[in-house]
């Protein structure tokens, strides 16, 4: 029996496992390309230090990658275990990019990561460099397919509902692949990964410089990270704007919630820099607004109107009423009482089927829905404003602060004075964890902002779960938290241990502090 408790626990478990997984993904995306850059420098210049850099940062990459793989396995199977109805309802479309991700990308990345670690003596320089690139390309291709899948959840195009098979079916593979929502998300997400990788290398290198350890090694690492990070931080902002534009086009409820736009404003709408949104009173207090800014950014025009929450809710109520007809027609079609009339009624209203299904939260018999239920379902169609408003702003503020840090780092590294700027080095050390926070905030905005849907406008979250008991879910949620937290502690322990050791951990005899590293046995 699917109760509200089951739905909430399923969501919590998915959120927890996805958040854990994404602690490891961005560093893989970014660091893999930094490794390729370092190794390219090694192959081009023949300087040993660049090979050592590739190996050392590669060691940290490996520590992170292991948990990325571990937590990633869960993601591939959790749709089936916990979201069985979702899997049935949209597997025809959603499963394809996941399977292609495995075939095209994950195989590539995973096969060559082993050769990256163990092939130094067995492969030629060029062969090894090639597999390093293939690993990086593989991990980024993975992101392409995963974000195509996720993009379809946000903007489900290239698919149609079939009442015979009772599910969504693919009508165009290329629509799915070239979904503008997916493309915008992909470039924004991988850029965020590059920023994370660059911040990681920049911060740890700065720490060596502050301690006066491995100075040559750290300086070269810093320079590469500063340049790569600067380009990435700019693109994350530009492409984040692109992603935001895609939201304006496809998910007006998400935009209204993250901007706290209760009322439709005259175009171009102002951007609310600061406010305290109140979801119960449906208004903001203490607003600080920049005139015209939101309208210009979100619509790239001066005359397109952005609908506010009140208006979107009224539209949703209208669609719900039409959806009721669709649900009822579908029920008779399923009961094999097929008449031309029902079929026509279904075809005419099927675009609003998902809205009719929103009522299932309140009544099994959608036809008997009261106006009060319709109002509640319409209200459900808007995500809660306060969490959206704040997480979005934290993400954006962090993004700009990264751009500033990288701009300064790049500037001083071009002038070759960065080692004297101890304030900059300290700043870089303290900023190491922040890209992760920004990424998680971004995912929160994207996924919490998709509510109450798993597939936007098509399938409500509360219908998407499996028929498992709340007891099972408490057990599995506790298990995931136990294993993931335990493994995270182990990972952090090793990360700190090896980051402190620095290149001494390679045992080449070229770096100070090698005695600190106890050999095995």
């Amino acid at each position: 029996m699917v109760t509200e408790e089951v739905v909430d626990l399923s969501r919590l478990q998915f959120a927890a496992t996805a958040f854990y997984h994404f602690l490891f993904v961005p560093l893989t995306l970014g660091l893999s390309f930094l490794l390729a850059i370092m190794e390219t420098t090694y192959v081009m210049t023949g300087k040993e230090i660049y090979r050592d850099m590739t190996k050392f940062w590669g060691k940290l990459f490996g520590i992170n990658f292991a948990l990325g793989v571990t937590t990633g396995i869960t993601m591939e199977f959790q749709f089936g275990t916990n979201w069985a109805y979702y899997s049935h309802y949209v597997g025809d479309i959603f499963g394809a990019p996941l399977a292609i991700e495995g075939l095209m990308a994950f195989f590539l990345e995973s096969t060559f990561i082993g050769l990256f670690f163990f092939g130094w003596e067995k492969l030629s320089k060029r062969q090894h460099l090639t597999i390093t690139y293939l690993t990086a390309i593989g991990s980024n291709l993975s992101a392409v397919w995963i974000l195509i899948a996720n993009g379809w959840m946000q903007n489900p195009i290239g698919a149609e509902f079939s009442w015979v098979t009772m599910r969504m079916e693919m009508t165009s593979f290329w629509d799915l692949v070239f979904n503008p929502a997916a493309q915008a998300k992909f470039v924004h997400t991988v850029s965020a990964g590059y920023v994370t990788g660059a911040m990681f290398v920049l911060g740890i290198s700065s720490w060596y410089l502050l301690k006066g350890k491995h100075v040559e090694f750290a300086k070269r690492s810093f320079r590469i990270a500063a340049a790569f990070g600067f380009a990435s931080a700019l693109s994350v902002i530009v492409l984040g704007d692109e992603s935001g534009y895609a939201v304006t086009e496809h998910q007006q409820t998400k935009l209204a919630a993250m901007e706290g736009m209760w009322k439709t404003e005259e175009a171009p709408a102002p951007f609310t820099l600061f406010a305290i949104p109140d979801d119960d009173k449906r208004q903001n207090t203490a607003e600080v607004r920049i005139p015209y800014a939101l309208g210009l950014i979100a619509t790239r025009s001066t005359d397109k109107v952005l609908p506010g929450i009140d208006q979107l809710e009224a539209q949703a109520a209208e669609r719900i009423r039409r959806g009721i007809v669709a649900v009822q027609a579908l029920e008779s079609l399923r009961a094999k009482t097929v008449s031309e009339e029902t079929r026509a009624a279904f075809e005419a209203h099927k675009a609003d089927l998902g809205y009719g299904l929103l009522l299932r939260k309140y009544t099994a018999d959608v036809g008997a829905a009261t106006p009060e239920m319709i109002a509640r379902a319409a209200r459900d169609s808007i995500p809660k404003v306060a969490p959206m408003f704040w997480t979005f702003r934290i993400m954006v503020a962090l993004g700009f602060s990264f751009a500033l840090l990288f701009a300064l780092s790049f500037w001083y590294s071009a002038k070759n004075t960065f080692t004297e700027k101890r304030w900059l080095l300290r700043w870089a050390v303290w900023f190491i964890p922040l890209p992760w926070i920004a990424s998680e905030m971004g995912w929160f905005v994207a996924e919490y902002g998709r509510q109450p849907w798993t597939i936007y406008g098509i399938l409500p979250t509360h219908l998407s779960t499996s028929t498992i008991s709340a007891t099972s879910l408490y057990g599995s949620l506790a298990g995931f938290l136990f294993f993931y937290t335990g493994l995270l502690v182990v990972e952090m322990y090793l990360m700190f241990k090896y980051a402190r050791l620095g290149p001494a951990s390679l045992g080449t005899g070229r770096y100070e502090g090698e005695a600190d590293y106890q050999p095995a046995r």
Partner: protein
Amino acid sequence: MLDYETLKIIWWLLVGVLLLGFAVMDGHDMGVGTLLPFVGRTDVERRVVINTVGPHWDGNQVWFITAGGAIFAAWPLVYATAFSGFYWAMLAVLWALFFRPVGFDYRSKVADPRWRTAWDWGLFVGGAVPALIFGVAFGNLLLGVPFHFEDNLMPVYTGTFWALLNPFALLAGVVSLAMLTFHGANYLMVRTEGQVYERARLASLIFGAVMLVAFAGAGVWVASGMKGYVITSVVEAGALPNPLDKSVAIQAGAWLGNFRKAPLLWLVPGAGFAGGLLALLLAWARKPVLAFIGSAVAELGVIGTAGVAMFPFIMPSSSDPRSSLTVWDSVSSHLTLSVMFWAALIFTPIVIAYTGWAYKMMAGKVTTAFIESHDRSAY
């Protein structure tokens, strides 16, 4: 575009290929993990064992991931019904698999013997538990699983986790565990020498024999009147999939029906026995590469036998037989099957080619001397 019926059959074969790829590639890693605490007595020996699969386990594991993704894409109803129905079994597999990536990568990064022993047992769990549970799951598929669909096609599993652990399913679990361990032992013989080699050879002889006996036992069990399933309504193989649109009967001995209709199919279980027996003899005769090929053929035979016996059933329902999932009615749309067919056709050979190259580049015995001279870079 190929016609729908053909694609449905192709996808049954392709899922078989992916499962076989999983058994041959990830299977030997899991076998190596299962044997790790036993064939390696000292830390260096255990590192030898781990480093035989060190560069490859991650790529091999993708067969498992991809099989999961392909089932999602091609058989969404199977993905939804089986994984949610076998909830705790799936979680046990996932949680056991957690120990592999971290076990491999983290073990040698700290020298403390307790740390290393802990990860050794982690790798053991990560190898043995999934290998056992996959067999148990197959055993339960052969028996039929208590589930039905609601009107909206929501799958509802009505059994318990403990009911999965019945005698036949456990026997199937033994077949699977022994088979992958056997295969892993043969792989270890290829890549090691000395003491580890000798212990791996002994393991190969033991687990090869266990696999053959357990497989024969399961065969006798099925042949001696175990209930199978047959579709009793007219099959419209090219129709739009709807699992509730058919009638199904439970009949003793029905799983032998395909073999009676097409006696050539006896070659499939025959390959299981012949491959297993040959591999056993070759391991005894110290021909590890051929033994490894033999145990791969045995895997083809064993997995193929389960598939062929049940065809066209994938997941029969014991409590509501008409809800049973078959290759005809649990599939994706014509377009999706077609797109995925081309994706598999293009990428699977590429994957096999570069995997082969990777093995070729890393070929050779892993020795204790190698571990000692690569203390910091080896696993």
